């Protein structure tokens, strides 16, 4: 145990200890992650957005409760894949068109206001919004349309027409991403080599997947929770939360944590995941920190299932949200430390964005 800790410390400080054992089975890991998490989750996203679009097609904008429910299901599905920042979702600005957030300068409201005041209906058609800002093409704009209204009223024009275009756009994008993963990108990721268009070797592909796990934790802490917590409870900023209008900030956080856990486990506890590789290399204690930390913070996040303004106005709930952030930061430290080494990767000291 003590030896392990010494090794950990040396690794953290970059002394460059190399594990002499053979490389882990990268191909099995990647295949498991893609087939148990990425592709089924994108298929689910495509299905949920297609259902949402069908609701608008079939019932027009008459049933607000059904539209909101469809919105929630589609957003649930998106939150399960929003950590994936590589592959088809990065083409044609799709990731930003689906959800342009954080939006500190309120670009969405600005563009949305202009679009609703436009005399020309064509501006709110699918081709019209695709030519407009990414901020009016996805969830944040749709959220404003659906949740700034009374719940028992139908959605009036011109909001209705615009909402229909947005749902069609979301459904198209989700369908394209799911299809591209199945038809080509799965293969791209699993056939790394000198002739591969993206991955010169298999470690690059593993690094990208590991990065998705690490980044999802970082975004949870630095973007979704810390800005809301502010310096103190009195200085908390609930409107800095994601999806506060639709009162689902905590639901997103819970889904993201659950997704991180699934990614870590490769789908579930029985499939090939990062956890198996860590355990094979004797990282029992670190595994306990990662899995235990995710399970604990998921439980807390689920317990806080209420509007974010309520969370931060109650001191014990506020503390619990702080604990979630602390717990996740601890998980991220292990994911970026011991797990990186177990995978035989090295995270560049100098390879951070924008340095």
């Amino acid at each position, binding site marked *: 145990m003590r030896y392990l800790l010494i090794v950990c410390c040396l690794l953290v400080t970059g002394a460059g200890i190399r594990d002499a054992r053979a490389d882990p089975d990268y191909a099995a890991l990647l295949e498991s992650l893609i087939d148990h998490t990425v592709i089924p989750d994108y298929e689910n996203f495509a299905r949920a957005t297609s259902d949402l679009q069908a609701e608008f097609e079939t019932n027009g904008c008459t049933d607000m409760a059904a539209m909101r429910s469809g919105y929630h299901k589609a957003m649930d599905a998106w939150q399960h894949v929003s950590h994936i920042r590589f592959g088809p979702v990065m083409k044609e600005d799709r990731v*930003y068109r689906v959800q342009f957030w954080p939006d500190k300068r309120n670009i969405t409201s600005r563009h949305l206001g202009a679009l609703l005041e436009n005399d020309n209906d064509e501006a709110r058609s699918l081709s019209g919004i695709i030519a407009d800002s*990414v901020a009016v093409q996805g969830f944040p704009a749709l959220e404003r349309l659906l949740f700034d209204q009374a719940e028992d009223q139908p959605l009036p024009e011109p909001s209705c027409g615009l909402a229909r275009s947005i749902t069609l756009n979301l459904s198209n994008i989700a369908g394209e991403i799911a299809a591209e993963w199945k038809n080509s990108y799965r293969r791209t990721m699993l056939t790394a080599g000198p002739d591969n268009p*993206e991955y010169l070797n298999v470690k690059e592909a593993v690094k990208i997947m590991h990065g998705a796990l690490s980044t999802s934790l970082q975004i949870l802490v630095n973007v979704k929770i*810390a800005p809301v917590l502010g310096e103190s409870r009195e200085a908390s900023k609930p409107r800095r939360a994601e999806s506060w209008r639709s009162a689902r900030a905590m639901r997103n956080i819970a889904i993201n944590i659950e997704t991180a856990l699934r990614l870590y486990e490769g789908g579930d506890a029985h499939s090939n995941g990062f956890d198996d590789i860590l355990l094979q290399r004797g990282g029992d204690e670190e595994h306990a920190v990662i899995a235990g*930390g995710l399970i604990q913070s998921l439980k807390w996040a689920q317990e806080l299932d209420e509007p974010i303004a309520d969370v931060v106005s109650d001191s014990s709930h506020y503390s619990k949200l702080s604990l979630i952030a602390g*717990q996740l930061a*601890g998980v991220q430290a292990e994911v970026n430390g011991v797990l990186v080494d177990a995978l035989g990767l090295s995270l560049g*000291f100098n*390879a951070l964005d924008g340095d």
Partner: protein
Amino acid sequence: MVSSSMHWVCHWGLMHSMEIDRRSLLRAASASAILAGFPGLSQAHAGTRSHIALCGRMADGLDYAFIGSMDGTALKAIKLPDRGHGSVFSPSGKRVAFPARRPGTFCLIHDIDSDTEDRWLTSPSGCHFTGHGVFIDETTLATTENDFDAGRGVVGFWDTLTGVRIGEFYSHGIGPHDILPMQGGKALCIANGGILTHPDTGRAKLNIPTMQPNLSIIETGSGRMLDSVEAPPELHKVSLRHFAKTADDLVVVGGQFEGAQSDNPPLIATWKPGSPLFFVSIDDHDRRAMNHYCGSIAIEPSGNYAVATSPRGNVAHLIALEEQATLLDSVTLPDVCGAAAVAENAFVVTSGQGEVLTLRIDADGIVHRDRMPLPRSTQWDNHAYSFL
């Protein structure tokens, strides 16, 4: 309890590493200087003021600024409150500044051969440093800063003797990063990387779909924009971040691509103010080798060659700056990033894994590399700067 055992690990690690720190510092110092031991290099710099400045994280996990004399006689290590980034020498080479890596708020000012105490600048509330600066004269420093609530880039001017911030000019873009003196100091060239960030959301990028980086030249005395250039629209996601220039103000700039991994745009361009950017023609394979990321650019004093490093691609590309700049050769080094000229036709490159290499280009254009026999206990940070 899961969390308490983790705290214990961290705490223990810190206690333990204090000793490593002192030892490794002594070992580094006993290697004389960062560059001592390179054949020919230390003699070439004997009796000159040549220095190199860089930042790094030592085995204790703490961050330091290093200043080494190139004749191999002196090395100083100064502890920083957080991670450093770039550095810059004053025109005489007697003073050096280390602005904090973004979103840091400190800047270290060190006088090399006097016993003056180190001075620390603090960025004003609402602004942070971005890791780069230039001296306008012996005492006045210009630093790129992010005025984050306004979402605009600024150049701050500092009296480094008193620590007073004299004023600021608009950088003419978002996310200013590297900065260079032009026209003998009468103007400043700024790489506005185009990426909007805010400390509230850490380093999260807030405007990728609409980012529009540029290189802008402003008049030092007035802030008036003299010239500005953008990449063509299809390359608007190449964040122009780092550059170097030749004696006659030819700029070589390296970018970081924020678009889809499947795209493979050129990252290195040259710019002669008044002309458009010229993207260096590098074949697909060597472009891919950079993995969408150029970390640092240096040009050696003769202006014949530039080096462009990629820590994500683990490669340093050497560029011949002829009429049409071309790729001369590539050197593989994991997590390579820092790069500085050390003599005519010679560079030093450093890595986040503690490696230091010299790259010397001979008259036939052949690249000779030498590895510095340093203990690999310091993770060298993104940049290295030399005063020759």
